[in-house]
């Protein structure tokens, strides 16, 4: 893996001479397309708030990991987020009620519990890097892990893409075609949890959901088919990811936040295109 990453050194830029930048570039190229693909489904199935809650619940997962004395809290993190995600799904199935209150409550609860667990003894500062993330500290071994994740989760997402999409359009319709919305959603939530928790270290809890949602939301403004939607989302994520990384190098800012700001800019541009199109559609239909 390291040998492949070192190939980036041939790039004729100052930043490409640094190993941490080459590692970060490899991570961005690997992970942003996966985020973009997953985001198209999250946005389509109106789960943006849900995935936000999963991201924020990580704080509690980390807290539990620390409490249990784990050197690397990842297992506790994955376990807790999975529990929360499936719990929310099950609650929705049982109560058939609107989800925003339940999601909001569990999110506040998880943040509060996480802060309490991690601030015991006044040591919260040790964990602030989970909030903001640090892409430049990523190692080739971690990139190998990301590579495996991208293959497994990306492959799984493509395999289940059609069902998840149809469930997002209408659950009863999907059920009448022999699909099981609940179990498909459980799988999807498991995929979201994997992606969110494995990337927390370098993106940070505060903005990881934006990275998931923004490319898809921006693509959605102008796409006219699922193919365009996914393709645009992937391109936007890749471009903003690389540009954000390089930009953060020159501006000396946190990478995750820089990427999200760029993606937000793209969102505003596509939104403007959408509004202009709508106006011209309206004119032509009025003629």
């Amino acid at each position, binding site marked *: 893996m390291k040998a492949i990453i070192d190939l980036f050194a041939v790039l004729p830029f100052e930043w490409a001479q640094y190993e941490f930048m080459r590692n970060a570039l490899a991570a961005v190229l690997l992970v942003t397309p996966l985020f973009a693909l997953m985001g*198209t489904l999250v946005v389509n199935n109106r789960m943006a708030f849900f995935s936000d809650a999963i991201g924020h619940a990580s704080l509690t997962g980390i807290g539990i990991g620390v409490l249990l004395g784990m050197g690397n809290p990842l297992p506790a993190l994955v376990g807790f987020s999975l529990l929360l995600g499936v719990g929310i799904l099950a609650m929705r199935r049982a109560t058939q009620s609107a989800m925003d209150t339940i999601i909001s409550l569990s999110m506040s609860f998880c943040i509060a519990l996480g802060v309490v667990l991690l601030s015991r003894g006044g040591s919260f500062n040790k964990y602030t890097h989970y909030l903001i993330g640090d892409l430049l500290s990523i190692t080739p071994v971690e990139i190998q892990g990301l590579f495996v994740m991208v293959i497994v989760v990306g492959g799984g997402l493509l395999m289940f893409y*059609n069902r998840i*999409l149809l469930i997002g359009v*209408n659950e*009863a*319709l999907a059920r009448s*075609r022999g699909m099981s919305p609940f179990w498909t959603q459980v799988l999807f939530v498991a995929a979201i949890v994997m992606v969110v928790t494995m990337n927390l270290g370098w993106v940070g809890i505060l903005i990881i959901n934006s990275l998931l949602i923004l490319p898809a939301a921006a693509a959605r403004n102008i796409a006219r*088919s*699922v193919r365009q939607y996914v393709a645009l989302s992937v391109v936007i994520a890749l471009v903003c990811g690389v540009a954000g990384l390089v930009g953060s190098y020159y501006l000396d800012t946190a990478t995750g936040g820089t990427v999200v700001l760029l993606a937000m800019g793209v969102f505003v541009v596509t939104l403007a295109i959408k509004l202009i199109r709508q106006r011209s559609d309206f004119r032509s239909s009025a003629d």
Partner: protein
Amino acid sequence: MRESYPPGIQHGGIAAHRCGQCCTEIERIGVRLDGVRVLEDVSLHLHCGELTTVIGPNGAGKTTLLRALLGEVPHSGAIKFHPVVRPDSAEAPAIGYVPQSLDFDRSSPVSVCDLFAAAISRLPVPVGCRGGARRTAMGALEIVEAGELIDRSLGRLSGGELQRVLLALSLTPLPNLLLLDEPVSGIDLAGRELFYRTVSELRRRLDVSILMVSHDLAGVVPVSDRIVFLDRRIVCAGPPAEVLANTELRHAFGLDLSVPEP
């Protein structure tokens, strides 16, 4: 998966056009929700090529009946399909379903072709809607005179267009039993007439049994072969003229408002 629909292919190619003999038996369906009996003892025999409409007041259990048939709510009783080629066998019918109203994000980029591909194809939709899935979608859309909608986004369809698209989707692959839940609610009059005409032609051309739930008594009378007046149980069932004469139905639908003689 069938790619196109020559008329009367429903029965393994044996009995051709309008066999009228395959039968879906709905036997003594009952549903309890939170201890309350919502449906009791509903039995119906549905023949191929026949359009049966279920009408009834709000809360009569019409939609619950469809949900029971779809297996979405726990219920007693059974639903069996007896194909004409194997009349003694009882199978679970292949069910096509058109939901009441599709509650989805109108800004969704999902196109009609994408919707078909998501429902019928193994190839992930992000690759595009093409090849066999596209041909199948086109074939089904043309049956309901909606071929030109294939590349339109779902959010840009009118209510009537969306219902025709969903109808085409429910016919892919061709079901034994087609369930329509209030298919014309929220559709303008012209769209309604077109929808009823399409459904009416379909039952003959494709020889499926259709069970439709509706509020629109005036609209369904001319197209239905049979009307079932449901109010938790079947109050009366038969040809439209017969059911229309039923006093309970006339009362429920306000058809008895003639001024009493002085």
